[in-house]
């Protein structure tokens, strides 16, 4: 009998302290396999996402906006998708885009993304869009650009004097643009643009960011300083649907959902093994019933369809 009890305890302990490589493999499969299914999932837009969309949608064609693309290859999965969606929306609306970045390591990928989208939509450099490139200085550059954009960027990324670019006619500072769009991966990013530009010069501003940054910018949306906020790949996918340009974000939703549910399963499993190893039977039963019931219901809902 002791052998059987210790055997049971032994396998519970082993499960509680399972090799993390098993967890890595499970998570990897949960994310990779759904990418090959071709399924898609829809999500209702939340108000911050709708406001972000409306802020661009209501601008008349020909309006000049400034996009601060503050991201680098590390955030490519979320923010390249976001940048493509924002640029597609802007170019479809006939908006004219002035783009720049505060991240030195992102200067090339931002340029590549901008060029790729612009050329695919038949836009002309210098007329419909311009890339001012990277300028070191962070907050100093931000507030200087809000005072005197041409002083901060006397030449664009290609080395052309800005005075020769038609898109920058009438643009002396960021106060002359209709909207500041922040595509942000961290610091410097949305928060700094709010502090240095939006707050001081009342420039209308919206932001699209990675998931981990969204909670930090939520207070600025709640206070009205950000007129719209899209945070995380799920909301980026929703935004893609709103503009009718489903891209990587939409395709990745099944994988992201699957990954999240695997994460939930791991949390529940961890707690179940914890409860069993501590002989907290009631807790273990509650977790098993609640968790099992939830996942069963999930399967039923998936099979039932929308």
């Amino acid at each position, binding site marked *: 009998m002791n052998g059987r009890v210790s055997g049971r305890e032994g396998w519970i302990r082993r499960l509680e302290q399972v090799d993390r490589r098993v*967890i*890595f493999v*499970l*998570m*990897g499969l949960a994310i990779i396999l759904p990418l090959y299914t071709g399924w898609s*999932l*829809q*999500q*209702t837009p*939340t108000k911050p996402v709708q406001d972000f969309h409306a802020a661009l949608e209501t601008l008349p064609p020909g309006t000049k906006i400034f996009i601060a693309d503050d991201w680098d*290859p*590390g955030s*490519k*999965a979320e923010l390249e998708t976001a940048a493509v969606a924002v640029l597609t929306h802007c170019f479809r609306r006939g908006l004219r885009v002035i783009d720049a970045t505060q991240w030195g*390591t992102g200067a*090339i*990928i931002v340029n*590549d993304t901008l060029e*790729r989208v612009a*050329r695919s939509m038949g836009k002309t450099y210098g007329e419909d869009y311009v890339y001012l490139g990277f300028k*070191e*200085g*962070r907050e*100093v*550059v931000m*507030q*200087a650009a809000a*005072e*005197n954009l041409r*002083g*901060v960027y006397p030449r664009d990324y290609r*080395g052309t004097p800005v005075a020769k670019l038609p898109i920058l006619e009438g643009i002396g500072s960021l106060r002359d643009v209709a909207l500041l769009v922040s595509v942000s991966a961290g610091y410097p990013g949305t928060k700094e643009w709010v502090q240095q530009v939006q707050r001081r010069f009342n420039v209308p501003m919206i932001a699209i960011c990675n998931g981990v940054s969204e*909670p*930090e910018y*939520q*207070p600025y949306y*709640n206070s009205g300083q950000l007129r719209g906020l899209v945070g*995380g790949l*799920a909301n980026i996918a929703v935004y893609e649907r709103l503009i009718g340009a489903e891209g990587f974000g939409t395709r990745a*939703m099944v994988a*992201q*959902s*699957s*990954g*999240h549910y695997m*994460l*939930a399963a*791991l*949390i529940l499993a*961890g*707690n179940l093994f*914890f*409860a069993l190893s501590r002989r907290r039977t009631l*807790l273990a039963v509650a977790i098993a019933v609640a968790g099992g019931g*939830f996942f069963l*219901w*999930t399967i039923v*809902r*998936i099979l039932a369809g*929308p």
Partner: protein
Amino acid sequence: MRREIPLFLTFLFGTFFVSMNFLQGDRLREATGGFLPDQINDWMSIIISFTYVLGVGNVLRIHVKKVARRENGWGYSAATLAGLAAMMIYGLILWIPLGIAFDGQPASVEPGREWMTGMQTGSVFNWFYDAVYTPMQSTMYALLAFFISSAAFRAFRVRSFQAALLAVTALLLIVGGVPLGETVWSGFPELTSWVMEILQTAGKRAILIGAALGAISTGVKIILGVEKSYLGGRA
């Protein structure tokens, strides 16, 4: 004087940038003929850009010393120096076409601009960036998905009431914050929005206020010379 001059400069420029918040930039520009604030902003950009020179100098100092003394891991230092040299040569000095440009044509550059224009579409520099740097950075960031899964498995244990609250809230947001959540229960989007916009924003706002006050107080002390630790050594 070694400490007094930096303290004075800190006070001068710190006060200037704080006072810029309370000055109308356009009026100031008119009153000073454009000297303020544009000239100061230009100086700051130049000074900040010089930090790159100092940064490269420091990198060279540390890694050259490691290679010269054959210290533990000197091979990695040699690789670092080789990478630094390659990127600087191809990025700043030498332009070599590799691949195709955006318009589908072979990469090219205007005649006479081959020197000091390394960073062009289709250049070797850009190839290093696209083929080496971008995948490496993306991969490292992607590791977070695996780290969070192993952390979640071991850390979200219901050991106490607060831990249970943390676990339940985390579970709700994890399952409700993705499109599948709405398929499972139509109320998930509203619930997760409420948690994000009301509950967590309240906590975040409090921390934001506290951190901002900390930043302001430290800034004030540095400008006024009360805080001198940035100069190194004892105040």
